[in-house]
């Protein structure tokens, strides 16, 4: 009895061994197949002449729904065309795009922030030249605005939302501290910081943990201390020996000396969570923050009621620097543009042109999704804060693109690192210039 059972069990074991072996063989074979399938997939992206893949970062309503409708309208107007829309959170999209560029699998229509990043993509032959194909659209955009998306005089993307940087402030806290008008010069800013401190209010939040929010102080310092010509020629030659760049760091020092920032600002993140710099402003813990035009939207996402600072939102431009050579009407800013991948079908260009059309940009403005660049859409903005901001942008002598975007991640990153060190009192204004120069020289 026992013997037989044992034999049976043994056979069973052997059987299952065999089947398992076969299963493994099938598994490894299918893995190989899958691997080869993946390998072949790369080249085929964008191969279909009637399919347009589109990634965007308006993953909240009303933007998400609006863009779905836009895609549907385009499909109806162009029978046979299929627009595949993917909405992602901003950082997810940036990460996926970076991975896409590495593997060569880029969506047909995607977002470019301009500057060095775009130049790298162009150099690698991955982004399509739109100069001829979208000449009409490009003609509508101010030259200064367009410059960030041009390489060697050719335009590679169509900016659809461009804004300026500045101080977002809490009007209620300013009132509480007895501040009558927002500061217009650096000395006035120092006074305002003093008044807020006297009223026991933390004056400014800054997400120096992410580095770029701290770097905006330096960037704006340079816009105020350097003439536009100096900035342009420095960007061309990547030579930062002009003394105005050291003076930009001295502007930062002037702010730092007043110790205006939220406690622990060196590791404070820029935009994630209620304890981030934007979160502190949104929840009334600090009086102001230097940030881009996206700030109201970011603050809305960081408050329970989804309103951000709401009615209490105020904005003033970066103060003037006494004796600075910069044009007082110069501004710092950045924006987003639609680009077309080199591998994309021609209909993708038509889609980008449609995205920039009066109709779509007007809807974009009505939904307060950003600051439209099509002049026909400017009147459609419903949010008064954004309407004020767009006036500042359009009255600016020029809008200097954020330096980290302009120089690309490598040089821009080194620059931001050095500025963050200055915030930690571990680098002088000269050190910041030296570190930037060194990174630029290595870039060659």
């Amino acid at each position, binding site marked *: 009895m026992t013997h037989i059972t044992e034999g049976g069990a*043994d056979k069973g074991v*052997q059987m299952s061994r065999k089947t398992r*072996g076969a299963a*493994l*063989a099938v*598994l*490894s074979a299918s*893995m190989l197949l899958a*691997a080869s399938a993946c390998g072949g997939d790369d080249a085929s992206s964008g191969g279909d002449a009637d399919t347009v893949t589109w990634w965007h970062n308006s993953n909240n309503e009303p933007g998400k729904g609006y863009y779905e409708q836009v895609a549907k309208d385009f499909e109806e107007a162009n029978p046979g065309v299929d627009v595949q829309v993917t909405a992602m959170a901003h950082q997810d999209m940036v*990460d996926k795009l*970076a991975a896409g*560029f*590495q593997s*060569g699998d880029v969506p047909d229509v995607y977002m470019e922030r301009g500057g060095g990043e775009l130049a*790298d*993509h162009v*150099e*690698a*032959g*991955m982004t399509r030249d739109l100069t001829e194909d979208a000449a009409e659209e490009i003609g509508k955009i101010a030259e200064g605005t367009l410059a960030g998306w041009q390489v060697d005089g050719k335009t590679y993307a169509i900016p659809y939302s461009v804004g300026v940087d500045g101080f977002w402030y809490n009007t209620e806290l300013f009132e509480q501290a007895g501040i009558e008008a927002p500061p217009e010069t650096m000395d006035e800013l120092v006074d305002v910081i003093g008044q807020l401190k006297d009223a026991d209010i933390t004056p400014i939040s800054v997400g*120096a*943990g*992410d580095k770029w929010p701290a770097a905006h102080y330096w960037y704006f310092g340079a816009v105020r201390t350097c003439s536009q010509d100096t900035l342009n020629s420095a960007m061309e030659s990547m030579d930062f020996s002009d003394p105005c760049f050291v003076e930009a760091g001295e502007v930062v020092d002037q702010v730092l000396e007043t110790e205006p920032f*939220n*406690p*622990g*600002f*060196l*590791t*404070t*993140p820029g935009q994630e969570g209620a*304890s981030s710099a934007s979160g502190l402003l949104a929840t009334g813990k600090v009086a102001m923050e230097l940030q881009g035009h996206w700030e109201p939207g970011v603050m809305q996402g960081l408050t329970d009621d989804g309103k951000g600072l709401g009615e209490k939102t105020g904005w003033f431009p970066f103060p003037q620097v006494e004796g600075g050579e910069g044009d007082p009407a110069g501004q710092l800013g950045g924006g987003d543009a639609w680009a077309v991948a080199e591998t994309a079908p021609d209909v993708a260009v038509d889609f980008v042109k449609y995205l920039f059309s009066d109709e779509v940009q007007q809807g974009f403005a009505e939904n307060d999704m950003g600051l439209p660049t099509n002049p026909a859409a400017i009147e459609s903005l419903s949010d008064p804060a954004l309407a004020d901001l767009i006036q500042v942008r359009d009255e600016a002598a020029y809008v200097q693109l954020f330096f980290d975007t302009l120089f*690309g*991640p*490598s040089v821009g*990153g*080194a620059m931001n*690192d050095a500025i*963050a*060190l200055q915030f*930690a009192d*571990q680098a002088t204004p000269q050190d910041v210039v030296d570190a930037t120069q060194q990174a630029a020289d*290595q870039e060659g």
Partner: protein
Amino acid sequence: MISTGAAVAATPAAAPVGEHGTGDPSGRSPVPGSPPGSSRWRQRLEIALFVTPALALMATFVVWPVVSAVRMSFFRWKGFGPMDDFVGLRNYEQVLGDAVFRDAVVHNLTIVGLSVAVQLPLGLLLAVLLNRRIRGRGLLRTIVFVPYVLAEVIAGVVWFQLLQPRSGLVEEILTTVGITPPEQGFLGTPGLALWTVFVVLTWKYLGLAVLLFLAGLQGVPDELYEAAQLDGASWWQVQRRVALPLLGPTIRTWAFLSMIGSLQLFDMVWILTGGGPANATTTMATYLVSQGTQRGNYGIAGAASVVLFVIAFVMALLYQVLVLRRDTGDQR
């Protein structure tokens, strides 16, 4: 001693399996009277079949990334487009010449040293205490072990909130007790940040040390304790002279794991400080991520990862030769 026991126990168990494996197929071969050569081929085929998937996985996910990192480290490459700008050893020059990277190595080694110096005695103490028959022992053991089970990112986010300057619970408690917390908070003060990270790491990983040591202590036969007690040894003497020496192999294995973990430290630092403030908490891993994915200097990141690999490899090898040999040597 423990490992010898394990080896002795393992050998007889392994032997029949081997016999079974070689003897069985020929005894039950499907075609009676087939030459013995075919069974050997079959055996080889079986081995190949079983090993191939593992080897394929290993090659795809371990060997290939290592090879491409090494290749990357000789080029200047932005992460896309052709990799054709060969720069020789310049990336290595830059990495080794970068004060931030050298500091990162120092931070890693500090964590390695601190872990052994602090977590080892603390872990042993807790393990010895939790090995006694006390009320609620199971509950206490679970509490000590829970942090280890938590995902590192979740634990990091929780501690990040607890350590918030002014509003965080840690500072609130300290203020109530009458201690003034640092002006910029524990994570925002360059001189304190690395120590703060280490405290959180200790909270997180002490559970593993205690668990391993407890397991080691379970392996110490009761007879030895009894014999020592009969000879008049105090509780303390029993722990020191009997339990601790028998725990040697477990301690050495834990120290090895702790060392490798500390060298590759990334998640907790990334969440708590991102390597800041003012590069006070960068590790080799945060350095290579910020150079690679954030700055697009994949060549420099590749060189940094090769340096990290070499440091970890050399330390692991030295540890094997100098320390772990005692344990493996016992088996022969």
